[in-house]
């Protein structure tokens, strides 16, 4: 019902808002005509599917809603300045309204990841005035989080008297209190939505201060505010969006020499998450190095931040909560490389696939002259990135994509804006807009799909693999389970980016014929698809293209930090799997406590016991259309089958 009301409000709003934001009557009329045409199209579409019970109404409604919003935003943001009403505050109000309308949509399913824990701490603060969650866990059914299965997270600190604390810092929960008191869980999400709106206003104000024209600001606005990842995190209870807001406010405070703003912003940023404190420290160092006069101010702020860490220490017995100070030391250079490229190009967790507009920001950072605020911001983030990228969960763990770089997304948007000041890039913008619209439609229709178990596949790859029962996932780059596509993508994309950077720096004029570009894109997609349909050289048995008949995923989907395990498929006698693989000699990787007998094609293989470790067996893959692996005796976890 709430979702229906929000849809109706959105639909009515999209009739009313153009009258407020489009000042020129002809443009307004043209928009309304286009809007009416789109509506008619959907009415006709609905008449085709209205009696079909298999119709996915969620997707249909989401597509309609998102396309209508995209149509209006396109009309509004691409119109000449004189024909529209535009200011950072108006843009923030618009974005905030969209976030609030999406709150019921997001709450169709229970909150997930770290979200319920923040709600639990909020409830504890309101009800008991402390952060001890013992009574909350005892009476978990009464929690507004709606997660009766909630138990303490692995590594949650326990007090000397048995107090059960959360591993998360309590500052976000403190911020959620007013919202919770007004509307419970929805109020908590609405609070984050409010921060989202504030973030948009601050970012657009920063754009103005950095000399970005309103033409470019209007182009960047929809990608920043209404696309992933800001849209994803503005409608969920994570500290990322408030952190991004405080970070941008800190950058603005620093460049304007406003000590109070800077101090409050850095303090709030540091209290949200320990990892953000590296940003605060680096920003202060950058500020101190830039001008000698700043030392006094910097010291004062450091003093304040330090004293608040002392308060945290007094509360939970450690100033860094559940973390360790060694975590602040960068390590493992190869993991750093993998995290770096993964953050850029991974099919499920990379910027290119999940928020492609911000790749422009990456290009801009390397190519165009950066403004003062942007340089300051990037410098502040350097240590943060060096710390996070080598982590096993560089992709964010159980969360919507790009979790760790949400805080820098406004900066990437600012960098992209610098690029767009010099180049119009209509083809790039159009392609990126289409992809982003698709992402938003899926995000609105199926919000739970934003969480992925990070097994090396991607939603797109899984969907295509299931559709064709072929390993098409391998055509999509993955740095979680590094594949050849990832290597090709890294090399190719780096070469392309370097080429663009070189061209920009040398002032070369590159003109791409759109017809050739789109046709080539078509050819690339077709070739990729055809290649993907061919049998692979390696089969990971937990993948979507494998047809499972019995058995279960191992480790289970909800296992904490599942990405650290070598996933597989647990089989017992009678269970079988079918898959495609090129014929030849292959190595079968498995784990079996007491040994097992499996059948592949017409051959029987006896698997020796491996204990808790893994074992290998050389087998011959028959020349068959579809190969079936059946467990005859014993039990095993089938990991993968790899051609030699």
């Amino acid at each position, binding site marked *: 019902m709430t979702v229906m009301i929000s849809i109706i409000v959105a639909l009515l709003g999209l009739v009313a808002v153009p009258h407020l934001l489009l000042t020129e009557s002809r443009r307004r009329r043209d928009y309304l005509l286009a809007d009416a045409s789109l509506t008619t199209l959907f009415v006709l579409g609905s008449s085709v599917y209205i009696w079909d019970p298999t119709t996915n109404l969620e997707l249909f409604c989401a597509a309609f809603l998102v396309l209508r919003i995209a149509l209006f935003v396109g009309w509004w943001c691409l119109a000449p300045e004189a024909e529209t009403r535009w200011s950072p505050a108006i843009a923030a109000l618009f974005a905030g309204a969209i976030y609030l309308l999406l709150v019921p949509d997001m709450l169709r399913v229970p909150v997930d990841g770290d979200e319920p824990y923040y709600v639990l701490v909020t409830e504890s603060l309101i009800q008991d005035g402390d952060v001890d969650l013992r009574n909350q866990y005892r009476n978990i059914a009464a929690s507004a989080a709606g997660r009766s299965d909630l138990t303490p997270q692995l590594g949650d600190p326990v007090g000397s008297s048995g107090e059960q604390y959360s591993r998360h810092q309590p500052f976000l929960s403190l911020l959620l209190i007013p919202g919770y008191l007004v509307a419970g869980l929805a109020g908590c999400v609405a609070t984050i939505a409010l921060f989202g709106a504030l973030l948009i206003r601050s970012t657009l104000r920063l754009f103005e201060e950095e000399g970005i024209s309103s033409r470019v600001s209007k182009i960047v606005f929809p990608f920043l505010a209404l696309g992933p990842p800001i849209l994803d995190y503005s409608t969920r209870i994570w500290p990322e969006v408030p952190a991004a807001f405080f970070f941008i406010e800190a950058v603005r405070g620093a460049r304007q020499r406003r000590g109070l703003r800077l101090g409050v912003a850095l303090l709030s940023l540091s209290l949200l998450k320990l990892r953000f404190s590296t940003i605060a420290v680096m920003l202060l160092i950058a500020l101190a190095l830039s001008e000698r006069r700043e030392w006094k101010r910097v010291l004062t702020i450091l003093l304040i931040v330090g004293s608040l860490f002392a308060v945290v220490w007094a509360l939970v017995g450690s100033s860094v909560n559940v973390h360790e100070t060694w975590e602040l030391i960068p390590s493992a250079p190869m993991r750093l490389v993998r995290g770096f490229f993964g953050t850029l190009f991974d099919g499920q967790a990379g910027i290119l696939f999940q928020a492609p507009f911000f790749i422009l920001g990456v290009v801009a950072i390397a190519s165009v002259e950066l403004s003062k605020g942007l340089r300051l911001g990037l410098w502040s983030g350097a240590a943060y990135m060096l710390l996070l990228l080598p982590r096993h969960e560089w992709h964010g763990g159980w969360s919507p994509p790009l979790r760790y770089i949400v805080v820098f997304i406004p900066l990437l948007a600012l960098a992209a804006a610098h690029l767009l000041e010099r180049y119009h890039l209509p083809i790039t913008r159009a392609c990126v807009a289409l992809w982003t619209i698709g992402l938003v439609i899926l995000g609105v229709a199926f919000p739970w799909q934003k969480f992925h178990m990070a097994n090396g596949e991607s939603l797109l790859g899984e969907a*295509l693999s299931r559709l064709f029962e072929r390993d098409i996932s391998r055509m999509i780059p993955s740095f979680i389970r590094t594949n050849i596509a990832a290597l090709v993508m890294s090399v190719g994309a780096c070469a392309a980016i370097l080429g663009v950077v070189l061209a920009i720096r040398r002032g070369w004029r590159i003109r791409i*014929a759109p017809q050739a570009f789109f046709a080539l894109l078509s050819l690339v997609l077709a070739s990729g698809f055809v290649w993907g349909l061919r049998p692979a050289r390696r089969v990971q048995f937990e993948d979507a293209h494998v047809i499972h008949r019995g058995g279960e995923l191992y480790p289970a989907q909800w296992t904490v930090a599942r990405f650290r395990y070598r996933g597989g498929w647990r089989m017992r006698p009678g269970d079988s799997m079918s898959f495609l693989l090129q014929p030849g000699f292959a190595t079968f990787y498995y784990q079996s406590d007491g040994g097992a007998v499996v059948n592949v094609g017409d051959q029987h293989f006896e698997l020796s016991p491996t204990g808790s470790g893994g074992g290998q067996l050389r087998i011959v893959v028959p020349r068959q259309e579809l190969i079936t692996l059946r467990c005859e005796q014993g039990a095993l976890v089938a990991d993968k089958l790899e051609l030699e």
Partner: protein
Amino acid sequence: MALATDLYGSPPARTELHRAAGSLWWLFAAFSATAASSLILSAAPHLSTPVDHFLPVISLVVVCASWSARHHSHGSWIVLGAPLLSVAAVILRDETLRLASFGAVCAIAIAVAIAMSAHSRPEAGGRSSAVAPDETGMGLDSQQAVTLLLLAAVPLRFVPLERATAPAALIICGGLIALLFELLRGPAHQLVHLAAAMIVAAVTPDLPMKLSLFPIHLALLVRLSRTGSIASAVLSLGVALACGKWALMQWLIVALISWSTQVVSGHGTPSFSLMKLPVAPTWTLRFAELARTMTGHGPLIISLLFFTSAFFLRPALSLLFVLAGIVFAVSGAALPSRSTTSPLLALALSMVALFPWSGALAATFPLPVPLSALILLAALLFLAHAGTAMAAILGMLLLLASYWALAPAHPAYPVGVTLKPGETFNLPPEAEARTISLIVSGSNIAQLGRHSPLARIEVLDRRGNAYRRDLAIGDASDWAAYRRDVFFLTRNPVPADSSNRVEGYGRSAFLRGAGRLAIRLPQEIAMIRVTASRTLPANATIQLDAIEYRKP
């Protein structure tokens, strides 16, 4: 060095080089788009329909549409349709949705090309515009119009690509070009003419083969109505004779009206001057005055006569007369551009979008969508001229209303029983069902006219009350009545509540002639008996395809 100066130094040489490079890009785009579609077609096992096999040509149509709008600054963007087609072909496993998406991409590409061509101005030194833009600021020269018409006609006429029907399609395309050229001489907007020609391209039946002469027959009739010359009269008479009696009837109407208007206006023959004699009675003079005022509206009179005749003819001939009526209505009318262009073009493009089932368009003319949707579309296009806010609100409310009306579908149970004349069959009742819908069709009954009895349905409720309903042509029809090879001779109208089941693809698609007959009772149904009429032809049968039960 000298060569370099020649090539790059002087502006004319550079322009030539750019043009050559531009042509190469277009060739590359055409090759890549076609190759991509062929690759997908060769690999994807689910692309098995004749429309899927036509995918490379559809991609080529999209590239050509873009090429036709190349003078517009964003014309080359239409090629974006090519990757969209590839993506749709790969990810959409649902056949209806996939084919509909092909149609939509194709129609949108042509629509955008039309809009861009109409708004673009040729480059300096390029070709000059044959037609000046009208008050809407839009202009389309004849070459562009013909290109766009052919782009629309190719998917409409050549799917499925069969050796047997290709000549007919080629003849139709030739006729369409002639018709468009003839129409473009009229006073209405070029886009209206283009839309009318596209509608003819979409709907013209091609079996029997002589019907493929219909577009050229229309072109000659339009010429006859304009010139009234003996040469065009003879030529059009010859084509009409080749087409059949119905074409001769059309020729007679056109010839009579065009010559009589010439007579009234005083051109051609001296007989009219006799009417101007002072001895003529007063009523004769008044009639002459009225006739004189009508002389400028000859095509409209012809159009009205065609529309009127359509009411009295069998479905296929009715369609041909309606098409002729539309063509004459636009050929002579100087209607306001905006109010006529949008609805007619929208109708034409909708037909292009339905090209995967183009054969079924004839029976379901103008479109196989609910009347409410058509009214909505017309209202929107009308309101678009007056005030679009109202149109937006209307569209939105209708969307919500359509969702409100969303209800679970009633399961249909296949029956699959055939009854010969006089035979009876008892259908099993469903517990608690008070409303049943029988889906019925016939076989070998295409020659029966409206209201011919087909069967009697008797229903008994739990209280012993008996109900009777007679089934006639109009409630159901021959299952193959609208098939391509039968449609021209069929006398069955489309059932009032058609089952809307389309079979086949492209020109071979047809609407299955089954009708749904609903019977509602206040009590639970105890018995349903269907008896085929004894008056049916000996070889005719009644087919009980399925039954739907609805419980309160």
